[in-house]
């Protein structure tokens, strides 16, 4: 006989979920080098914790706020998984030491997966596609709106999915983190972003060079040499510093020659 599926309790009211979602957008508002986003977690959970027996003046609420405002680190979007799961754990009355252990265990995976999925995947993918639109001569408003709509569709979807999965699975959310989107998503996203980079860079490049394409051979040669320098020097100098150095030197040369 198959074991009966565990039915999660009904989610908090829409008003509470909306407040938590809005606060998730500001989860890093008090980010600092000591507690990282710890205060942000308590800030996001606070509307849900008001449902604890006795309300905001009860020891249960105060204990939960004290626990949740301590050190926590995760990717800001994937922190939605933690917020959903921690809200459920607190409202279910899980023991404090279990919640604290769970918080500690969650930090690593939520950080590294999020960085690869969003910062190294979804964000560059959206940017390269917008650059491709720019290269195709699309209007400024259309480029900006397309980029913002595409990027934030993924952003908000991830927050909503994280909150729901966290709430439904509570302290068992680790199994939710094994979802194919999170396991295979980063590699898939990196490939999609690579494809978009291949399309977007030459299109944007040509549009910036402009009509006539003067110095095209020199630009291509300079680009390849520069790219090799950026890759070889990556441990010592980030790309934007390289750009700052080259552009400063060029401006200086133009002014003093």
């Amino acid at each position, binding site marked *: 006989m198959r074991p009966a599926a565990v039915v999660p309790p009904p989610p908090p009211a829409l008003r509470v979920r909306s407040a938590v979602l809005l606060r998730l957008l500001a989860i890093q508002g008090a*980010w600092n080098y000591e507690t990282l986003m710890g205060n942000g977690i308590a800030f996001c959970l606070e509307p849900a914790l008001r449902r604890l027996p006795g309300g905001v003046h009860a020891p249960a609420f*105060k204990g939960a706020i004290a626990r949740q405002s301590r050190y926590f680190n995760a990717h800001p979007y994937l922190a939605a998984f933690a917020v959903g799961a921690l809200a459920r754990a607190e409202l279910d009355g899980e023991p404090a030491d279990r919640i604290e252990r769970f918080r500690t265990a969650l930090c690593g995976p939520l950080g590294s997966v999020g*960085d690869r999925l969003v910062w*190294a995947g979804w964000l560059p993918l959206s940017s390269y596609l917008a650059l491709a639109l720019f290269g195709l001569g699309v209007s400024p408003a259309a480029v900006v709106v397309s980029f913002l709509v595409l990027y934030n569709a993924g952003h908000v979807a991830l927050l909503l999915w994280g909150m729901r999965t966290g709430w439904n699975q509570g302290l068992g959310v680790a199994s939710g983190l094994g979802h194919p989107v999170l396991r295979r998503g980063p590699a898939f996203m990196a490939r999609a972003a690579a494809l978009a980079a291949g399309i977007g860079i030459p*299109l944007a490049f040509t549009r910036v060079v402009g009509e006539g394409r003067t110095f095209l051979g020199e630009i291509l040669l300079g*680009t390849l040499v520069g790219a090799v320098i950026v890759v070889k020097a990556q441990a010592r100098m980030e790309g934007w510093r390289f750009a700052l150095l080259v552009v400063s030197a060029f401006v200086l040369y133009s002014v003093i020659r």
Partner: protein
Amino acid sequence: MNALEVVPVALLGGIAGLDTVSFPQAMISRPLVSATLGAALVGAPMQGLLLGAILELIALETLPVGASRYPEWGSASVVAGAIYGRTGAGVVGAVMVAVLGALLFAWFGGWSMVALRRRNAVVARRHRAALEAGSRGAVLDVQLSGLTSDFARAVLVSAAAYLVLVPAERLVLLHWTLGERLSRAELVATAASVALGSAWKLFHSTAGARWFFFGGLGIGLLVLGMR
């Protein structure tokens, strides 16, 4: 230059700077968006888009990962966009000077974010006893203090950038000697170098990603050839 000119740019820069980390991370702070909006303030969104695309190619290499230090592109791009839009596309060297200004103030903005994070830690430390007692008010105080300080930081960075860069740009352009095509060529080569380098850094660790890149490159070149 008067306050009516500085205030809108500083406020928009504040919004873009706040978006970088604190709220709502909707990527209004990406150069492609913020430079376009900055230039749109002075009625030249097309120039802003061009500048934003150049800066975006450079900024793509920067991943806003946790505690790492990175340039704050939002405020700097708004100001650079407004200045480039104000000067005009026809002025030789203007785009190069705008890019230099954006890079310098993105660097300064990144430094100001580190200072803010230290300040946030001081505020959190000051509220530690109340937080440990489970005070809801303390949680809200710490969070709202961080958010408002970040907005104020970005407004100040943007205002300072505008006040410094407008006269500096005028001075540099007065003595500018190189042609527009050569300037543009140098700028494109630099931005594309960083973009290619960042693409390689992002994708070289993923199996097969380079083939997707070359596939994309083929599509991109095909599209260019058909135009």
